């Protein structure tokens, strides 16, 4: 049973300074995200999309400002309702099966049946005995998503979860993301795949040089992008 989803994710006056006085590498004055929608984060390489997800998960802490979930500043128990699939997922030095077992046990949802269900759902039967760190890129992303979902989070952060996946795996991952979204979970997806953003997203955040330039619904963003940078990005003219 998932934790109750937060009504809102709110970011206020958030600033993350880079090292060696290079100034702020991410700065968000105000951002509000509705719960239970799939938000896609777009932007060129190095814009700060991954940093944004890492800040939400609490993997890095902001220099200034605050992030709240349901108007509460996250503390350790709050982070337990968020999960992230990072761009380069890391695993315990264990087999695929034991990595899944580890997270299920942490979440007090381990049973042999649950373990088999997860393995089957993410099509990892052939890899279950293999060491997780020895998997191929696409397999790693499947396992990372499986582990993130095993945590049964209310908010699922996804940093290019199909970047190394073949079309079949991409389809499988997208299907799972749609299923999780339909369960009322908040999904925040970073992707460079415009078609995927259109297929899955409900609203879009466009980040450029560490700033949120535009926040709109998917239809509105792709049909009528307002900002010069968004238009250039969509036409493939922009790089950081």
């Amino acid at each position, binding site marked *: 049973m998932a934790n109750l989803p937060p009504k809102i994710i709110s970011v206020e006056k958030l600033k993350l300074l880079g090292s060696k006085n290079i100034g702020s590498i991410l700065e968000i004055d105000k951002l509000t995200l509705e719960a239970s929608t799939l938000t896609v984060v777009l932007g060129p390489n190095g814009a700060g999309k991954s940093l944004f997800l890492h800040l939400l*998960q609490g*993997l890095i802490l902001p220099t200034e400002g605050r992030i709240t979930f349901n108007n509460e500043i996250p503390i350790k128990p709050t982070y337990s309702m968020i999960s992230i699939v990072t761009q380069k997922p*890391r695993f*315990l030095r*264990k087999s695929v099966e034991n990595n899944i077992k580890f997270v299920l046990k942490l979440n007090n949802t381990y049973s042999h049946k649950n373990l088999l269900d997860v393995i089957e759902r993410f099509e990892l039967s052939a890899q279950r005995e293999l060491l997780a760190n020895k998997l191929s890129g696409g397999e790693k992303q499947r396992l990372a998503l499986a582990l993130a979902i095993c945590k049964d989070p209310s908010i699922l952060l996804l940093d290019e979860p199909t970047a190394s996946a073949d079309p079949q795996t991409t389809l499988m991952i997208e299907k799972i993301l749609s299923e999780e979204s339909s369960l009322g979970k908040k999904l925040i997806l970073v992707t460079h795949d415009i078609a995927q953003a259109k297929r899955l997203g409900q609203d879009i955040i466009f980040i450029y040089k560490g700033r949120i330039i535009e926040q709109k619904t998917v239809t509105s963003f792709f049909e009528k992008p307002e900002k010069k940078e968004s238009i250039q990005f969509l036409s493939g003219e922009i790089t950081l």
Partner: protein
Amino acid sequence: MSVFLEAFSTAFNLIVSLDTSLLEIVWLSIKISISSLIIASLFGFPIGALLAMKSFGGRALIITIFNSMMGMPPVVVGLVVYLMVSRSGPLGWLEILYTPYAMIIAQVILIFPIIVALSTQILEELHKEYEDIFKIFSVPPRTAVITYIFDSKDALLTIFLAGFGRAISEVGAVIIVGGNIDHATRVMTTTIALETSKGDLPLALALGIILLGLSLIVNLIATKIKSGTTGGING
């Protein structure tokens, strides 16, 4: 070649006849080495873990010092311990010079930096891999510690063996602080040194063979342990 054959023959005879003097020497060697290893590990592994996982001022310097101490000459350690526990030394009141206790202290000083330095390296690498995973999955500290130990058990066991190897094969320090006294502080390495100086090469070689055999047995046990540990949340 005949010396080697004689050595093997002597070693075989000593072992099968369960020579009491030999057993006494072997048993004392094992007792001193294991005691040193346990004491050094009890302090060494937690300090290694602390250095691997916590950031604080002077950390790099401490690690460098422990790394350098791995190559400490045993005779120097023996000499320092001798000066400390000799009658006029600051620990002279303990009256442990030429006892197994002094030998244990010397060996602990030799093994401790090895355990700290190597466990720091191993756990630092693992910590880099696991830090974010543990944050993402809100892993409780107790489970995190168990997972660190479990997932680095092979490497930690290897460190343990390196420490044992250093202890059991050490001669310079224990001969200075132990004095190589028969039936009191005579261990395998000091006996080998003594018998060689006396010209009794077959006995010295025989003891060398037993020492090698002992190391082999310890390694075989370790390999067995490595291949057969499962269970718990770390399944």
